[in-house]
């Protein structure tokens, strides 16, 4: 044990650079993984984050005005009370549009419990008595920003002109419009002005309890405590449910990222350990002659790398702890409403898994180390090789002999050469796939029509008649085409499942879906479906699917497959004439507008509102591609980790090579190779392996990239067809940078060899 520890200590000291890189890889991968999970958690389940940041209350009660709430503190498990705050219903008026809002009176002093997380602007201030702070999702829905002027109408008529001074997030209630009315915070005098009659107001009080599991129990006790005064109760589970949302595209890419990063870490540890064992064969054999058992040697090698892995994992945990907030700060709140550090148990669990993988990766090389023959110590087998016919021909053709000799030397040891090529090629392949993901994201952002997002705006008639609205949208110069649209639910023939169906355009003029397979609908009764729906119903393109729409049976023939990221990909789309022909009473029609190239969405929206005198209801289509911006920094992180993996492979290859070639190099120098030629020879030895690996990896990555992305998209229901190959300039840059990086990395150890006196190389 002591002997093993001492050996590990000296081995670590002998190669500080390698150890540092190994630690960085483990730490980097763990950090990347933890950050990915943080983002995923923040994006798909934002309540927990908002709750933690706002020190929220689990229970919210609406009470009759003037209710005494001091008794609530006596209930077991209650740690704090938020409020009570006066609250009243009102209407926000923006031109012709009216939105119901709940005004809540708060003070400029931010409360300790149920804090508001100010995203833009500022919180209520004594200096701005007419200021209002809007809840973030509500502000987005009604297109308000800091500085917007609003009119608020009270129920009984009083009106106040207010100014939006801030936008804040809260864990008190779910996102608008899942949960209505919208929420706005004002100071008490303003509330009193809008609703002067006290009995028309309510009091809202939040209860924070020590253990969320006791929520319903405490809520019951609270209701009993305030008998008669309680108008309604809401709990965190309702808020959490209304906030939760799937985000398949982001989730898909994050999952891919996490898996690749993990694979990379395993690869780099295996490669580093394997290379180290190869370099140390003789010393390991010597240890055996001293009396180390095979098991002890295996344990020692594994323990050494496990120790480095543990240090790396700790580094990752610390880095995550300090980097989470600054790194993820820039993500728009519309994608991730709250970024909150993961619970300690998750972090520990993931760090342990990383450590387990390190041990797993070191296990095989460690086992090999244990099996090293003790005779190696005294035999010093020199790898056999001969100058191939090819090498002779190349040398005769005046090719620099140093390069030929170096390249030839790279392949004398077959297994290490294969390991190096394998490790490096794998990194390169994954980098190529990463570039493919990047170009897919680019493509989706540049041509949203390819994922079913041809329309940038939807327009509801609002106060106008359908004909008037139709005339306005089809007459607008910024609109390329307008498609009458309906969204109706359909009950499947089985009677248990309801799906979303879209009537878009007509059979004569179908909406320009990007059809991945089959064709668009050109006759009544034809429909296109996305992958998620086909999977759900076990259908293929060309088959019939019967369903009921508004009680009327309709049979669709699925003639094509479209790519659709929304509704979990469970969408059926058809021409509106199908509905009229089947006798379905058409629900209200809205228009999906495809804009002319070069027209910005906001400009078109402003123009339509102006033309209609603000009477049209114009909404921007939720563009999942806008959320994909977050992928880019993650891809950059991934590529950095993989570059580290490659670096370790190259370093391993050159140290194994140098150990093998030292005598050869001595001999070559003795017969007249200049130090520079020796350098070239050693570097080309590593570069030869790297070039093969890079070429193989890039080719393999290029071949599978599109297919892999499509496969992932298919699994997630978006459907195959979004994948794009990496762009040529990106590929060229990646290949050149990789080759140059490999060569530069190989120069470092080669310089050391050149500096060694020839006599030392020729000696034992």
């Amino acid at each position, binding site marked *: 044990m002591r002997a093993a520890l001492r*050996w590990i200590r*000296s081995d670590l000291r002998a190669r500080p650079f390698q150890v540092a890189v190994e630690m960085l890889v483990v730490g980097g991968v763990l950090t990347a993984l933890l950050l990915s999970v943080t983002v995923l958690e923040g994006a798909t389940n934002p309540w927990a984050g908002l709750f933690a940041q706002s020190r929220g209350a689990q229970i919210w009660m609406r009470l009759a005005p003037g209710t005494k709430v001091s008794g609530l503190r006596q209930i077991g498990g209650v740690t704090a009370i938020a409020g009570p705050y006066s609250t009243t219903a009102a209407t926000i008026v923006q031109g012709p549009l009216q939105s119901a809002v709940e005004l809540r009176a708060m003070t400029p002093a931010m409360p300790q419990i149920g804090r508001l997380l100010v995203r833009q602007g500022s919180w209520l201030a004594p200096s701005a008595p007419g200021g209002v702070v809007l809840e973030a999702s509500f502000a987005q829905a009604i297109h308000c920003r800091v500085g917007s002027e609003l009119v608020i109408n009270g129920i009984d008529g009083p009106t106040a002109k207010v100014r939006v001074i801030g936008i804040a997030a809260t864990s008190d209630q779910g996102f608008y419009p899942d949960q209505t009315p919208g929420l706005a915070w004002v100071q008490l005098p303003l509330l009193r002005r809008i609703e002067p009659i006290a009995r028309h107001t309510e009091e809202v009080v939040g209860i924070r309890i020590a253990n969320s599991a006791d929520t319903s129990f405490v809520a019951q006790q609270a209701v009993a405590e305030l008998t008669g005064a309680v108008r309604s109760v809401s709990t965190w589970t309702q808020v959490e449910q209304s906030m939760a949302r799937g985000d398949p595209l982001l989730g898909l890419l994050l999952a891919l990222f996490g898996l690749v990063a993990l694979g990379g870490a395993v690869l780099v540890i295996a490669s580093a350990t394997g290379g180290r064992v190869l370099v140390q064969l003789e010393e390991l054999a010597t240890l055996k002659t001293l009396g180390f058992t095979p098991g002890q040697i295996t344990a020692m090698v594994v323990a050494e790398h496990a120790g480095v892995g543990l240090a790396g994992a700790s580094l990752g945990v610390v880095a995550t702890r300090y980097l989470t907030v600054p790194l993820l700060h820039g993500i728009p709140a519309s994608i991730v409403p709250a970024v909150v550090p993961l619970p300690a148990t998750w972090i520990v669990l993931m760090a342990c898994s990383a450590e387990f993988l390190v041990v797993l990766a070191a296990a095989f090389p460690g086992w090999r180390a244990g099996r090293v023959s*003790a005779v190696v110590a*005294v035999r010093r087998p020199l790898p056999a090789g001969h100058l191939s016919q090819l090498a002779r021909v190349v040398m005769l053709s005046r090719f620099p002999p140093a390069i030929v000799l170096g390249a030839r030397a790279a392949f004398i040891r077959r297994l290490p050469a294969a390991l190096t090529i394998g490790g490096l090629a794998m990194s390169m392949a994954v980098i190529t796939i990463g570039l493919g993901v990047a170009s897919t994201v680019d493509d989706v952002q540049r041509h949203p029509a390819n994922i079913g997002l041809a329309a940038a705006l939807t327009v509801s008639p609002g106060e106008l008649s359908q004909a008037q609205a139709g005339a306005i949208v089809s007459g607008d110069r910024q609109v390329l085409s307008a498609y009458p649209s309906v969204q109706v639910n359909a009950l499947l023939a089985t009677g248990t499942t309801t799906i979303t169906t879209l009537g878009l355009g007509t059979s004569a003029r179908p909406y320009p879906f990007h059809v991945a397979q089959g064709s668009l609908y050109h006759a009544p009764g034809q429909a296109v479906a996305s992958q998620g729906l086909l999977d759900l119903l076990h259908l293929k393109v060309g088959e019939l699917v019967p369903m009921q729409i508004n009680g009327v049976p309709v049979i669709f023939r699925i003639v094509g497959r479209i790519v659709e990221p929304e509704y979990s990909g469970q969408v059926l789309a058809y021409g509106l004439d199908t509905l009229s022909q089947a006798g379905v009473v058409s629900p209200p029609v809205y228009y999906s507008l495809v804009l002319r190239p070069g027209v910005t969405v906001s400009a078109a929206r402003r123009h339509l509102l102006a033309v209609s005198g603000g009477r049209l209801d114009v909404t921007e289509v939720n563009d999942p591609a806008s959320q994909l911006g977050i992928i880019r920094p993650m891809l950059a992180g991934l590529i950095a980790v993989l570059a580290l993996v490659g670096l370790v492979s190259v370093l391993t290859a050159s140290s194994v090579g140098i150990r093998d070639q030292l005598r050869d190099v001595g001999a070559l120098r003795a017969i007249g190779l200049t130090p520079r030629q020796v350098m070239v020879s050693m570097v080309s030895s590593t570069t030869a392996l790297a070039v093969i690996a890079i070429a193989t990896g890039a080719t393999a990555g290029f071949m599978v990239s599109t297919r892999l992305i499509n496969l992932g998209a298919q699994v997630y229901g978006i459907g195959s067809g979004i994948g794009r190959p990496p762009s040529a300039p990106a590929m060229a840059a990646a290949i050149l940078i990789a080759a140059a990086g490999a060569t530069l990395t190989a120069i470092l150890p080669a310089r050391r060899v050149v500096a060694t006196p020839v006599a030392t190389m020729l000696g034992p």
Partner: protein
Amino acid sequence: MIARAVPQPAPSADEMLLKIVGLSKVYKGGGPPVHAVRGVSLSLEPGQFVAVMGPSGSGKSSLLHMLGGLEPPTTGQIWFDGARVDGLSQARWAMLRRRNIGFVFQFFNLVSNMTVADNVELPALMSGATRRQAKERRIELLAELGLSDKASASPARLSGGEQQRVALARALANRPSLLLADEPTGNLDSLNSADVLRVLCRVHGQGQTIILVTHDARAASMADRVVNLFDGMIIDDMDVVTPIRPSVAAAGVLRLGE
């Protein structure tokens, strides 16, 4: 020096430190099998110093490796201290080496990442000595071998002779009952060779049993007994009868070296 052939004695296993019977080694690696050692039998009393000589390829090193358990014999028996050991597992052999067998090689085989002190302390630590015990033994050994001032040096900074003396110190750290030396002077100049031989003689004088594989007749002359191998077989097994006491020999070498 006068040498004479002696008939093979038949001592009982109890008195013998090492006894090998019909030991042979065949290497099979692609081509025709190579018979490196063919049916060698040998017995060794405690305290004996045996030199194994023979031309290159005569099977000397293979024999030594089998005696130390570095590679298994193809056939034959090895008895160590009255127990049969040829069938031991690698781990058992490792434990036997740890406590009872010291190795010295032609190319020293010091652990290059470790200091001289660490190299010498390693076997003691491995056999369960405390850090203090290992350190005491190391100080004692290095002082005995004149290397006290090199304790914290890296092996690469030492001369060949110094490296081989460190290797000897490491081999002797656990006071092994058998010291196996494979051409320990094969890579040294005459001055350094003399140094190493002087140490071997001295430890032999203290009762150390030694098997020395060598090409060097002068090295072999220090031994009590010289075994000659040719083509994997013993062709000659002689006691060296010149009544040179080990201590005298050591003194002689000492003078030689000075």
